[in-house]
């Protein structure tokens, strides 16, 4: 009688573990599961985006087209052109300009809430803060390989 009871105990433990496993997988399943190589590739994209923006800053291109005292009057078209030109053609980049926690400008200079629509999904992002301005601006670059990449 005692042995029979112990067998039942293990059975329920197995059942609970199985249910636990299913629950964890079901509730925690990622938006898109990636390999470790994908993470490395995303890091490369981040560095590429960051160094590109820094190069635009150091070569006085960002200071030239960003209005230092009134960001809304910046030349967003030219900034966009330079960003696209400095990055490889296989990289898709969409900038978002963060003024503060809640206010952002999109690539064409329209002010609104922060966060780009999810139509541009599976991206990685990097932030570059431009400091030579009355109200500092952080450029959040959404980056994605247009083809050939894992992301």
């Amino acid at each position, binding site marked *: 009688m005692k042995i029979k009871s112990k067998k039942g105990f293990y059975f329920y433990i197995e059942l609970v573990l199985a249910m636990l496993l299913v629950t964890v997988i079901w509730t925690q399943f990622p938006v*898109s599961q990636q390999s470790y190589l994908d993470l490395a590739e995303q890091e490369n994209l981040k560095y590429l985006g*960051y160094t590109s923006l820094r190069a635009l800053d150091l070569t006085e291109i960002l200071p030239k087209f960003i209005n230092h005292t009134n960001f809304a009057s910046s030349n967003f078209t030219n900034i966009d052109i330079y960003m696209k030109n400095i990055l490889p053609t296989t990289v898709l980049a969409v900038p978002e300009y963060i003024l503060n926690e809640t206010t952002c400008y999109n690539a064409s200079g329209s002010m609104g809430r922060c966060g780009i629509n999810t139509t541009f999904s*599976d991206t990685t992002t990097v932030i570059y803060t431009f400091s030579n301005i009355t109200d*500092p601006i952080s450029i959040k670059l959404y980056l994605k390989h247009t083809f050939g990449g894992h992301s």
Partner: protein
Amino acid sequence: MKKAQFFLISLVLILISMFYVYTYIRSSDLSSTLFFERPATLDLQNMIDAIKLRNDRQSQIPPWWNSSWQYRETVAVSTTVGTGTSTVTLEVNPNVAAARLLSSSCTKELRMTNRTTNPLVGIESNVTAASQPCNLVRQEVITCGADSCTVTFDYYVYYGNANPDTPSYRNTVASGGAQAATIGSEEPETKTKLCNHFMAIYPKMGAQVSCEVLNYAGNKTNISLYYNSPTLKFNGTVI
């Protein structure tokens, strides 16, 4: 047998969990899960770069007179006098946009400094009206050793302070009629808001950020920066 089965199942579950943790990374930013954290190196590097680059750029221009004023512009005005010592009255229209005159008071807010003195010090001036449109008036003494001398005066005009006091030297110089002047482009004061920006933006990336301006060296800022993320910690000063 059952005990062995239990341990076997447990072992398999542990291995599955380890594999799951190892490979599971969400692609959307800010949402790395489980034991993976968003790499923080670039964020910290960006903050340090932003401070240093701002300091490098600002060190090439004359220091700011007073950080309570957010903007300044250059004003150059020329005048011609005859031989001997002359007192001339210079009057210029600084063309300050109404939105930039935060107190809406020319009397209180518009201030002048010479561009050539270091450090910059406020110099006496008057205004022709309490509110816009208003001109700035200043007297200068010129000594000319020739029959005729043309002298150019370079000033900074400061504005963009919502709560200035009225300086004691107002109403001491009478209007002399506006003269042609060369107004330079507007420059922003960039010392004070960088820390606030860091503390608003970077904690959203999953890090603790503390930033404080310790002191100014000319236009440079000596900033104390504390950054703490699960993968990276920094505590130091940046200038």
